[in-house]
């Protein structure tokens, strides 16, 4: 497993303020596959991506990408490392002062000395791949949510990275653009041989494309396996999440006094 995995997360701890976000997370993300990291909202899935991308430093444990400890790299080496990574942000994070074309060209201009004509070809190729070649002159404010995310995807793969991190790619999308995105992620993965990490809590879509799934909750990995094996997982917490049941080990109610006491007790007081 180690030989074929691109990213290794070992015994990762992370605290923010007084809250423990992660208490010993171990992940191994295989090369060339789509790995999903799932979990309820507020379990720090986005934080995990930021830890992998080296934007946050863990309080203990380490993250290895291709054998390099991300948090031990110098600033320069880290920026070099990030060249090999693409990240798709939840909001798309397109630069609002640049056109669609310039957004996709941005990583190319930063990291390469390609002549303008070559930049143009590459950008149009990437935009064609996400079906937005015709939208190249629009500004980000003129795009719909789904288009924004597709442009962001084109930008994330502009440099042909080895690893691409998707932060909640399906949130807030209508069914059509959701389907488009699912298909795009799968196609890009196969066509470019990418290693993909998808962080999401949209179970159906994520399970349909993932090769391997980690379920993260309460600061640790609660379950992992292939989508098929998770579907029949016996652990009640995992099955509640995977099947989307409203009540179970993760309670519907925020912790409170007994309902009966709360209502009647007030009158007595």
């Amino acid at each position, binding site marked *: 497993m180690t030989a074929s995995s691109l990213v290794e997360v070992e015994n990762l701890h992370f605290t923010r303020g007084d809250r423990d976000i992660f208490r010993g997370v171990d992940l191994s993300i295989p090369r060339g596959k789509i790995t999903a990291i799932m979990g309820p909202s507020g379990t720090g899935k986005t934080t995990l991506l930021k830890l992998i991308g080296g934007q946050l430093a863990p309080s203990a444990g380490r993250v290895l990408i291709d054998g390099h400890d991300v948090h031990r790299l110098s600033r320069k080496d880290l920026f070099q490392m990030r060249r090999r990574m693409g990240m798709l*942000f*939840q*909001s*798309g994070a397109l*630069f609002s002062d640049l056109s669609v074309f310039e957004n996709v060209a*941005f990583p190319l201009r*930063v990291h390469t000395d390609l002549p303008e004509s070559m930049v143009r070809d590459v950008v149009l190729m990437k935009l064609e791949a996400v079906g937005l070649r015709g939208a190249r002159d629009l500004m980000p404010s003129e795009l719909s949510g789904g288009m924004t995310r597709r442009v962001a995807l084109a930008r994330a793969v502009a440099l042909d990275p080895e690893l691409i991190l998707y932060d909640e790619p399906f949130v807030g999308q209508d069914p059509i653009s959701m389907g488009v995105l699912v298909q795009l992620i799968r196609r890009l993965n196969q066509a470019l041989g990418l290693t993909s990490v998808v962080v999401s809590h949209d179970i159906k879509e994520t399970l349909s494309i993932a090769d391997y799934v980690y379920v993260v909750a309460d600061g640790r990995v609660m379950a992992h396996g292939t989508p098929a094996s998770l579907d029949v997982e016996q652990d009640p917490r995992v099955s509640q999440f995977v099947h989307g049941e409203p009540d179970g080990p993760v309670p519907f109610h925020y912790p409170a006094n007994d309902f009966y006491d709360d209502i009647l007790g007030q009158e007595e007081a």
Partner: protein
Amino acid sequence: MIERISRLGRRGCDLLEAVGRAGLFLAQSMFGRPTMGGISLWIAQVYMVGVLSLAIILVSGLFIGMVLALQGYTILVDFGAADALGQMVSLALLRELAPVVAALLFAGRAGSALTAEIGLMKATEQLTSMEMIGVDPLRRIVAPRLWAGFVSLPLLTIGFSVVGIYGGYLVGVEWLGVFEGSYWGNMQASVGFFNDIGNGIVKSLMFALVVTWIAVFQGYDLIPTSEGISRATTRTVVYSSLAVLGLDFVLTAVMFGGLS
């Protein structure tokens, strides 16, 4: 009691930490290696920060010059010294009013816009994504804005002075009938190029640095929510106004107060 003292101590530590962070932030962005397209980014920011503030600065300058002439005339005429009107208007503008008022207007017009813009970039993860692409947002986003502010405000201050002196001329000479020759002549006799104009420009350079620094840092350091952005925008205007007025006292004492 002990709880209070320790809270005070914690406040002090927080404050020191914020000042340190802001200092590092300034050093990294102003003196870092500029990124590609540096000049055109800078030009775009001079447009946003300088050219778009021009109207409010010039209109205010005109009115302040006119009011100065009107007020000054009613006082000076009692001493039979209405000829000194040009001297009074020009010195008041060049030394004090133009740098300070232009900086305050600049903080309100351009500073708050800078904070909101950078804050919005932070809230929509543009800064993070830029970092992931491998570009330091301090150099690409912050540095051109800092330098644009640093250049724009002194130019705006010069414009403020020119228009203000012209406004004083309109009221004093054209309306109240001060002799034109003594308006300009007394002005030329008493205004020193380096002492008055130069010091005014030095003042406005310092104000430019402080105001844009506060604005950009508040934007960069805010909590990325809509509430955070609106609070940071308010803080920019309040902090930079206070900083400008306080710094003005110090600079005036050093430049004109015989303290040097």
